[in-house]
Every structure is written in C-alpha cells, then in structure tokens.
C-alpha cells in the first residue's frame, strides 16, 4: 500500500469510526475488519452522509463489524433477525439508508427465512453477508455455507452436507442486486458495495471473509496469509467463468454481479 493511500485510509477511519471502540475485536488475520474498511470506503466514495445511515447486525463475530464501531446509528439485534428489524425501521422511516451486516450463520441459517422474504419484497436495503463459511463466535461449528469435506468442530470427519449458494437463493427470491466478492479482491468488493449503495431495492453482497482461528487452523492452512491468498485460487470472475469449460468450474467460487436490476423504474 502506498503511503498516500495509507493516509487517506486513516482519514476515513477517523471520520467513520468511534475512536473509543478501537482496536477492533477481531482475531489476527480475520477478514471481518477488511469487510468493515471496504464498507467505509464505499460509503466515502458514494458521497453518502454517514449520519443518514442505519447499520443493523445480528449475533456473531460479523455482527460486530458495524456495532458499535461505526459512527452512525447502529442496532445490534438477536441472532438471525437483523433483516427483520431493519425492515421495520426502513418502512417506518424511508429516508434512512439501511445496511445490514451479519454472518453466514446469522443470515443464511437461523435468519434464512427473513433473507428470502426481504428479497422477495425487494425492501430497499443493502445486506452484506460477511461469509467465513463457519460459525466463528461459537467455536467453529459447521454453517450452511461450509464446503463439502471441510472440518469443523461438529464435522470432525469433514462436512457431508452440500453448501448453500446464497447468491442463487437471493436471486431466486427476487432481489434487485446480487453480487459476490471476497476480502482478497478488495477493490472489487468496494466497487460492488458502491454499486449497491446507489441502487434502490434489495441488494445482497456475499463477501467471503476468512476465519483463520476456527476454519484455517482445522483445515491445514499454514497461515492466515495463505488462507487469504487461497481465496484468489478458489475464485474466478463471472466474465471468465462464462467463457470457461464447465468442468473447470467444479470447485470454483464465482465472483461478480449476478443480478443488476434498478427497481427505481
């Protein structure tokens, strides 16, 4: 990172974060801090006044991404329910710019039904799933997005349940905007967030964010850095994937924009 960019980033931190809540509570190598910085840089680039924003998050490490760090209204709610709380707030005060940030366990497992129905209703909000493919906070149990064969504290011999593709789910439910990126592809992730912030309707971004403590350790990654870099190997851009022979995509995670429908019209 250039020195200039570092300075810029620091300014962003100060403007958007409550200093007294720092340092962030995440483990070394956790992707959730990068998700936070991507969100703030996207807001900065979009010119949105942080005072107009409401962040709603559930329970889990990911629920701590906005709360209480971001200098805006934040609501840290019960496990799985942030979208439902956010729906009430947004409907009553449509001027609020609402963003939900939560984990894969929170949004896809216990809160899966709210995700489906908010997408179906196309409620105007941005939902960011900080997807570490595991239950981080409770000690590394299997989640609905954990891959086949992955070792967790409840799948010692490897996960035998196929994972859920959240983007496909939300697309089928009717969301206006559906995209995926990772914390490794930071600029890409920021560009997706920026796009989502400027759209009306239900936007969903699946943001892969590694968990070295609970996931990396049990699945033979040498280091957090290696786990992060592995995201590069695992992912392929949608444009490239469209051109590639299907057999080569078997174990690939496709990143990019899957649905882009401006429901302003």
């Amino acid at each position, binding site marked *: 990172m250039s020195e200039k960019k570092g300075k810029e980033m620091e300014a962003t931190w100060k403007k958007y974060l*409550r200093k007294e*809540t720092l340092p962030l509570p995440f483990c070394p190598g956790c992707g959730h801090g990068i998700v936070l910085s991507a969100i703030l840089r996207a807001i900065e680039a979009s010119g949105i006044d942080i*005072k*107009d924003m*409401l962040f*709603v998050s559930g329970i889990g490490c990911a629920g701590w991404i906005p*709360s*209480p760090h971001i*200098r*805006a*209204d*934040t*609501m*840290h*709610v*019960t496990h799985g*329910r942030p979208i*439902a*709380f*956010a*729906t*009430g*707030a*947004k*409907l*009553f*005060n449509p*001027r*609020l710019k609402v963003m939900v940030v939560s984990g894969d366990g929170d949004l896809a497992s216990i809160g899966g*039904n*709210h995700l*489906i*129905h908010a997408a179906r209703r196309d409620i105007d909000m941005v939902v960011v799933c900080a997807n570490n493919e595991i239950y981080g906070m409770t000690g590394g149990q299997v989640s609905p997005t954990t891959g086949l064969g992955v070792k967790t504290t409840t799948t010692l011999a490897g996960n035998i349940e196929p994972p859920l593709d959240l983007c496909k789910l939300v697309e089928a439910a009717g969301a206006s905007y559906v995209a995926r990126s990772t914390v490794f592809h930071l600029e890409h992730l920021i560009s997706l967030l920026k796009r989502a912030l400027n759209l009306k309707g239900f936007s969903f971004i699946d943001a892969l964010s590694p968990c070295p403590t609970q996931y990396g350790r049990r699945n033979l990654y040498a280091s957090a850095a290696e786990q992060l870099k592995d995201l590069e190997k695992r992912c392929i851009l949608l444009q490239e994937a469209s051109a590639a022979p299907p057999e080569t995509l078997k174990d690939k995670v496709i990143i990019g924009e899957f649905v882009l429908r401006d429901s302003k019209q």
Partner: protein
Amino acid sequence: MSPKIKNLLPPGNYFFEGNQACAEAALAAGCRFFAGYPISPSSEILERLSWRLPEVGGVFIQMEDEIASIAAVIGAVWAGAKAMTATSGPGLSLMLENIGYAIITETPCVVVDVQRAGPSTGQATRPYDGDIMQVKWGSSGDYQIIALAPWSVQEMYDLTIQAFNLAELYRVPVFVMGDAALAHLRESCRIPEEVEIVGRKKASGVAHFGTDELSGVPPMASFGEGEGLIITGSTHDALGYRRTQDSDIQQKLVNRLNEKILSNVGEIIETEEYFLEGADVAVVAYGIVARAALAAVKEARLRGIKIGLLRLKTLWPFPEEKIRALEAKKIVVPELNRGQLVREVERVAQAEVISVNRVDGEIMRPGEIVEAIKGVRD
C-alpha cells in the same frame, strides 16, 4: 400532563368486536406501525389495521412469522414509531426472544395476546387464560413487563390506549391479554372525543440507556436524528456500549430494568373493588372470567353470603398490596386454566385461597362460581 389528542373516529357509541376495538384504540393512541402474522383468534386486529393504518398515514406489514413481526415492530419504534403487534399463545412463544431484546433495550411497544386453549396449537378458537405466566417469565433473564387484562370490549379499547401510554412512560413492552371470547364478543364501545396520550420522552446528546436513579427511565432518540444511537441486546452501559464482562454494569442494568417498574407499582397498577367491605369471602378475578365472577358475587349476595370481588386490570406487575389488604377469610380465584395467577395470590394472601378452574375451552359461567362460593362457605 399528557396532551389530549382528537380521536380519529367520530365520537359515539360503536358496536365493536373486541378485536376491532383494540385496533381502533391503537390508532387513537398514536400507533402508526403494525407488523404481524395471522393467527386465530387475533387475526381481525391484523386485518383491520391492514387498511386502517394506511388511511391515517401509518405503515402495515404482514411479516413472514412472529419472530420477524416483533423484530419489525422494535425496528420501527427506534425509527420513531409507536408500534404494536398482535398474536396468540403459539405466536407469543416465537416472539419471546425478541421481547427480551425489547426489554433490555428499553423499547416501548405493545403486544396484544389474544389467548386461546393450548398447549401448542390446542384449540384455536377457544378462550383460555393460558399465557399468564408465559408473558411474565417466557423470555430469558430477570425482568419486569406490564400486562393488562381487559374484561369488556370497552376495555379492549381503553386498556389498549393505556398500554401505549404505559409503554412510553416506562420504556417497556406492555401486553394486552385478551382471549378468544372477548376478541369476538360484540358490545357497545364508547369512543370519546379526545384521548389522553403519552408522547415519547426525547432528548438529544444524552445517555439513552441509563440514568443514575435506580428506578429511572432514560429519554430515547430515534434513528436519523444524528444521535449516533448504539443499541444492543447485550449488556450495555448508559451510552449503549457493550459491556459483556463487567459485573457492576450487569447488576446495575438488571436492577434498573426491574426497579423502574417495581418502584412505580402505585402508578401502574389498577384494580376495581365490588362489595369488599365486610366481606367474608373475596373473589379475585381478571379478564372475561371477572364478568362471570361479578354476576356470581351479586347472586351469592342475594342469598345472604357476604362476598365481594377484587378485579385485576393489571396482572403484571402483580397487585400484591391489594391482595395483602383483603380482609376476607377466604379468597376464591376463578381462572380459565389449572391455576396460574392463583399462585401469585397464594404467595401474598393472608387468607385461605381456593382455585376454581375450567380447562375445557369453554367460558366460565356464573353458576359454577356460585357453586364454588357455596362450597367454600360451608
């Protein structure tokens, strides 16, 4: 002093079902957000508000389940609304975790529980006092809520308005405990020209989650007012910051959540007394059963029995002092359950307590209570 605001319906004598009266009362009380999920015998509240709320500039949404309904209500309250949901026992069970969230975040809101026979799906259209303990103890932790028990269609109206006012005064969820019989009973209901409304106590730049007084109720702001609200269901300090390892803060918060209700029982609790002076026997009753109890007491008095009625309009916080003050030698507690509130009566009563029950999903009739009274006297 609370301002009086002009009612939305022209004043007059209406002929309402309990559920209709409740929905209209919510509007009169300033409710502008309702989220709910259909369940007998409460659905008429949801149905009526689906068209009435838009008429008065409010927001209605049918959510995907009861968990989402109470969540949306709490979200809307923090966005500035007065808000309500309505359900029955099984739906209340689903709401309880988020009701705990409303309690710890001190979110004023109203939950109407139109009770039906249970457990579980039970008998969806039959009256029951099945949730008396569920509302008080159903969520986790240590807390107080307020629960009111209307006995007429008029009170489905009056107590729903009061529920909104109490919710604002104490920043607490308030329950209106109806039942299947009252929900669908039609009676005359007087709509007054003006109703007394308690507004939200607001302040900016202050702590929204604590005061130094043990029993204090802090003011609250809304989203979008530039306050940078920090709201969490975790234990938090006065500013809202999570303090999940601090024992002092845990203790201070829990004590205040309880004491802000318990040290104001004199302001909160309402009861009604009939013929209690010099009575040997007192009936303690609430809800629709109290109607049968009053008829029974009048009949028993015609037969020369010295008997009176204490009717509880407030169930929680429990009117302990009123029970303790009863001079009767025997206390009869009729309920549509195997004896729920009677346990509280037993806990504080100075007299022998007799529980009278009906659990077949039918309404309790005056004759049954008269029989019980005669038995007690002999």
